[in-house]
């Protein structure tokens, strides 16, 4: 067992713990904070089920963005859909045995990776080119894009430049499940890739990546438009009636 393997094992344990605990904390916070008034942006569904469908469409299709900014939608979609494919492709490193379906859609992952990095590059470029977007950009917005691009590029590095022994990587990951630290191949693209992924997991619950859980908690989207039909009262507001 090398020091490198121990370091990476520790890093991944810590980052996974931060991600899970941090997200659990934020989701609980979002869940429990009251929304005292009905503020759905109308026209809105009049039933709660309808409102959930609205949120699902936002989360899956970025519907509002589609009507808001078509170009941005295309590149945001390329990035997010690409990322989704890549994540699915990566499941094979975490599941044993690999299900047939997963093996089947395996090759798509590479195209997903390309769409992801391509989309990200455009998103980065527009932060410098469009004056309005440049104005609202903070250093962290650029760093976040660079981090994601770095993850994508290092991933490609493993596939095309510096072929990584994926069997060994998988053994390392499966070992982590049972707290058995196995040997991690000391290949630079892999190490960079894992390091950046760990970093991403750590910043996730503290950054704008909170839009991932947050999209489900936005009152303007997840509320049913039924204020005349049902009385809506937050606990703290009820106290005023005393």
């Amino acid at each position, binding site marked *: 067992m090398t020091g490198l393997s121990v370091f990476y094992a520790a890093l991944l344990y810590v980052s996974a713990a931060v991600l899970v605990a941090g997200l659990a904390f934020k989701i609980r916070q979002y869940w429990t*904070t009251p929304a*005292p008034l009905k503020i759905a942006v*109308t026209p809105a569904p009049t039933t709660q089920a309808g409102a959930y469908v609205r949120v699902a469409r936002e989360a899956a299709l970025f519907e*509002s963005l589609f009507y808001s900014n078509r170009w941005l939608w295309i590149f945001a979609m390329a990035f997010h859909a690409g990322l989704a494919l890549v994540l699915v492709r990566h499941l094979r490193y975490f599941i044993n045995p690999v299900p047939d379906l997963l093996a089947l859609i395996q090759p798509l992952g590479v195209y997903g990776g390309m769409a992801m990095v391509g989309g990200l590059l455009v998103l980065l470029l527009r932060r410098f080119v469009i004056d309005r977007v440049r104005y*609202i950009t903070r*250093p962290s917005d650029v760093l976040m894009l660079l981090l994601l691009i770095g993850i994508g590029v290092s991933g490609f590095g493993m596939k095309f430049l510096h072929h990584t022994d994926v069997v060994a990587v998988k053994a390392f990951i499966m070992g982590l499940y049972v707290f058995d630290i196995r040997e991690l191949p000391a290949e630079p693209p892999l190490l960079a890739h894992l390091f950046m992924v760990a970093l991403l997991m750590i910043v996730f619950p503290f*950054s704008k990546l909170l839009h991932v859980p947050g999209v489900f908690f936005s009152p*303007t989207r997840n509320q049913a438009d039924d204020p005349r039909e049902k009385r809506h009262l937050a606990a703290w507001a009820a106290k005023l009636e005393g």
Partner: protein
Amino acid sequence: MAKVPYTVPALDDLPTVPRIKPGAMSELKSYVAVAAHQEPLGFPGELVENWEQAAVAKMGELLGKYKSLRVYLDMCVKCGACTDKCHYFLGSGDPKNMPVARQDLMRDIYRYYFTPTGKVLGSLVGAKPWTKERLDDWYNYFHQCSQCRRCSLFCPYGIDTAEISMAAREIMDSIGLGQKYCNEIIGKVHKIGNNLGLPEPALVNTLEGLEEDVLDATGHAVKFPLDVEGAEVLFVTPSADFFAEPHVDGLIGYAKVFHQMGLSWTMSSYASEAGNFGMFIGNYEQMRKIAMRIREAAIQLKVKRIVFGECGHAWRVAYAFLNSLAGPFDFLDPRYPVPQHIMELTRGAILSGAIKLDSSANADKVVTVHDSCNIARATRMGPEPGSQFEYPRFVLQAACPKFVDMHPDATRERTFCCGGGGGLLTDELIDIRIKGAKPRVEALRDVVEQHGVTHMASMCAICKSQFTKVLPYYGYEMGMVQSVHQLVSNAILLGGNS
């Protein structure tokens, strides 16, 4: 009053987005409330000494009370989709009038005091501590937001800048930095019952005068009842309807509709205001106190239904908040929604034949309609989503032979604010009001030139006041602005069909 400087922007074709002009509106500031406006509402009379800590404490309190604030401050990805959606940015080019940048005025402070990243990484994530300059920016730019929520419609997460600007105003009020316009008006409602501070005798006088005018003009004894116990309907309308133009012509229209329907109705001198400026300052308690007047009047006058007149912000509070603030309304007739909009009544009466309109009375006009932001994006008027667009159009088409809609990017849920909503309808803000009207005027010019539109109907007291004031700067006559029920008033056939 000192003359306030202003400039009128040149009109463009509708989708034109300006280049940013940093600082363009940074000096524009509405009058700050003095102790006489602040203290009756329970706010400190002047900026408190330890305002930084007090503001942070208040922000912490609001973060625990409003899911919107909590989630929206965290989740913005700075995608920029909202940056070209605010009429104040489109009209002024000031980047702090881009919705996300407006939010960032609060988000930067939030990050600094409330998030680990802000504490550790500081300016890397934009975190900034309080300074006097930042407070000035808050005051100026959170009073250049009409809380119209156009940005929320277009944001991929529905981030609602109105929620942020309401919270910001509440925080500022709590540290003694209120806005004179809003707080003075709220004080008048608590004291007298309406935004204009019209006492009961003046109200009686006005309504009697209207009865005489309508009798002279039509030969029909149309009543404008006040404080009539046992009436079927309590009617609540913005106080501007009592004498501003063209509002009052709308009031005459409502009265004719009630008259012709044979529906007994009354207004209340105690609840003589539909508008609820408590919403503008984001203060639940103030909003509740104002709303309770309506509940109390309804109980006292023993009515069975509550109906609201034409007003956008009023209708948002009425439709979306009244039940929360002042409900439950189980003492009213359960067959009707509480409250109802006058447009629902008029439309229903046209459909059932209870009133008849002769649209030839408006044959000299080509009419378009301005969808008020709060009606469009925060309410309905009937059971179906979108009824807030269809009902006024139905009524207008029944009352006017020639009706034309403006561009789809400027109507229905995409409508642009008139530029005067959310507590901005005050003279010292005329510069931003003119600029904020620009997208609406561009859409209007389009139908004037293409279809010969002569009039724009409006269903909101603020929109009507704002447009009559601002359209002339763009070369249009103030008389172009009409109340929806003014057009109904022209066309309605009185008598003979009972």
